[in-house]
């Protein structure tokens, strides 16, 4: 068990293993993306209220749901960094922060475009929008702390602490913003989960798109982590061999 654990933490092992998995993952991702996008954009029936605008949901919902995973991911990676000093966990945490900021921004932007049509405004201080925006700010905080600290070792631990604090904070913010929002806007709920349950021809492509974006997330994270491994292990023998052979 411990042998396996320490092996898992070795960047070289991860680099080789992810190199083997990556083509398969990319193939699955491409397949799901093509199926999902074609299905969502061409074959899903227009919504009886929103018309064709409903198709934005197939981009927005996957990005919004995956962007909630970043702080827990970074907190877990941060804990592993602090407790077991595993270099790989910190590399994942480092690459996850900017990726999370991008995903959160995409969720906000796609939601804003969707909202501009169905709510008639690009921005409202809705609970979900506000907490998403604050999560974006917290991620920017982690990124700027990482770039400000020059010592890699200190930066990785400091960012680990901040990620753990931020993860707790994201939950507190989520609850407090929801509470604030329900008190501020008692009427005129913008909830989308209303009326009849959605028929399968609407939600099955959504599930396909969610899976596709999850794969996209995994692929981006692995690719970025591989780059980070090469940068940090550039003095290691195996990276030199890799560079000479390619």
């Amino acid at each position, binding site marked *: 068990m411990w042998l396996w654990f320490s092996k898992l933490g070795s960047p070289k092992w991860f680099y080789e293993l992810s190199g083997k998995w990556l083509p398969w993952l990319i193939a699955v991702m491409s397949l799901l993306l093509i199926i999902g996008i074609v299905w969502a954009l061409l074959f899903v029936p227009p919504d009886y209220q929103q018309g064709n605008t409903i198709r934005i949901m197939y981009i927005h919902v996957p990005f919004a749901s995956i962007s909630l995973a970043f702080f827990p991911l970074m907190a877990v990676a941060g804990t592993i960094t602090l407790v077991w000093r595993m270099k790989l966990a910190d590399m994942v945490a480092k690459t996850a922060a900017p990726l999370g900021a991008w995903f959160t921004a995409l969720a906000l932007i796609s939601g804003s475009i969707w909202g501009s049509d169905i709510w008639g405004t690009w921005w409202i201080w809705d609970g979900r929008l506000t907490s998403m925006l604050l999560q974006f700010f917290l991620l920017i905080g982690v990124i700027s702390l990482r770039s400000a600290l020059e010592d890699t070792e200190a930066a990785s631990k400091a960012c680990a*602490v901040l990620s753990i604090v931020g993860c707790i904070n994201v939950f507190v913010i989520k609850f407090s913003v929801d509470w604030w929002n329900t008190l501020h806007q008692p009427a005129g709920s913008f909830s989308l989960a209303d009326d009849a349950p959605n028929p399968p021809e609407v939600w099955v492509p959504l599930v396909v798109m969610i899976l596709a974006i999850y794969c996209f997330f995994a692929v981006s994270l692995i690719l970025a982590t591989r780059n980070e491994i090469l940068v940090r292990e550039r003095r290691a023998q195996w990276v030199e061999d890799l560079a000479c052979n390619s």
Partner: protein
Amino acid sequence: MSAVTTTTGAAFIATLRRDLLIAYKKKHDVVNPFMFFLIVATLFPIGISPEPERLGEIAAGVLWIAALLAAMLSMDSLYRSDFEDGSLEQLLLSPHPLYFMVLAKNIAHWLVSGLPVVLVSPLIAYMLNLPDEAYLAVFLTLLIGTPVLSLLGSIGVALTVGLGSRGLILAVITLPMSVPVLIAGTMAVQQTLNGAPLLGYLAILGALLLGSLALAPLASAAALRITVN
């Protein structure tokens, strides 16, 4: 070599006294956050509108945001001079749990920079034409809420203590974290104006205070151990 001669309680009191004494000698650390609070609160009537009705509506929010900014800016002095003269390293080397030492520093810092802001808030509230029935709510929420801001800010300062220029990073890290406190504080005042009982909101703020009292010094202590070598 020598055995531990002081108890943790004595070390806690000693740290607290030392920080209060330093603040007493360097009065600008006391006066600056206080003046900043006054000046920021003054900018709102000038920037938005001097009409009493409009000011009354925004007064609670203005007071809270000014207190939040004052708390954040004053945080800089929490560890900086100790870091520069090396006494922070001595604190880290002490045999007592760092949690209590950090807590003592946070309490001293709040007494020096947070409490004056709370005490002067009714005056600013009057100048901003806050409705009479909200005075108690503003005062009590600030009294319970500003220590939370100090405790959270302490984490941000501890993470950035070695950096040369960190004003903006500190803001980016700590301001989003302070949002729940801001929400609880301003909602309490708004709801009091609507006739709702204040106690529930004070309980929520109290819960935030106890939670951050228990957890934030741990994070600050961990951060200090990382950033101070």
